[in-house]
């Protein structure tokens, strides 16, 4: 079973890298980009075949390692 985790900075946490990308897009002539937020995608290959159990396991992985919940939030896609 496959799982995909999206990790993003929480709303309200300034994303200096996203801001830099926004400025660079402006420099390239892409006007009208009001905001850029940069995150990461983590793909997992799981031995688990039960979607519910897989989700619970990945959630624990996010809480313990994959995301720093002080500044980041995460979304999990299963399958």
């Amino acid at each position, binding site marked *: 079973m496959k799982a995909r985790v999206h990790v993003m900075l929480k709303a309200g946490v*300034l994303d200096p890298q996203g801001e830099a990308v926004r400025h660079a897009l402006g420099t390239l002539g892409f006007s009208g980009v009001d905001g850029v937020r940069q995150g990461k995608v983590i793909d997992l290959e799981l031995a688990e075949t039960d979607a519910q159990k897989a989700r619970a396991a990945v959630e624990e992985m996010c809480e313990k390692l*994959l995301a720093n919940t002080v*500044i980041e939030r995460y979304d999990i896609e299963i399958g």
Partner: protein
Amino acid sequence: MKSAVIQFPGSNCDRDLAMALNRVGGAGPAQIVWHKETSLPAGLDLVAIPGGFSFGDYLRCGAIAARSPITRAIVAFAKRGGHVLGVCNGFQVLTEAGLLPGALMRNANLKYICRTVGLRVDTTDSAFTAGYAPGQEIALPIAHHDGNYTADADTLARLEDAGRVAFRYTDNPNGSAGDIAGILSANRRVLGMMPHPERASETAHGNTDGAVLFRSLADAMAPA
């Protein structure tokens, strides 16, 4: 003072930190402890986590090191009231391990900054800072890409109210909240700081402002 310096793959200030600790003397030289160890040497007064790029800063700075076998032992040591010092990447490890609140984000200007900066000693109420004068202005080198301290408003208020900000930048280089350069745990025995006191601890460095921190620790740990 009996101390240990933790070594992760990618640590690069471990020997400097050990030398700074050895310079203030104590019960034998600082022991270097590899991260795969599951326990700390017996009878330690201080555990020091050095700067560097543990595990190549993969995932997040300090994230993998904070889940290393030795870190479990460090957390237990701190919970028993042991003193822990984290410098630079060591500070990042301490926040990732949950021993200090908040997080260290990418510098606001997105640049790796390597230079000496001005700091104000915000509290002398700790074994680390007792040797400084209250409000003393000192200079220490910084060398980091992710030193932009952040925490939610409640946490920041709690740190300020309890006088847990140990060092503050006099001219904020990285965007950190409240100009914070270093903070203490609630029991004041865990210190995380981005500046490098070990790089300003002997006359050959051209600056000995950092030596005071190590001297303070040695004095605090000296048998009564």
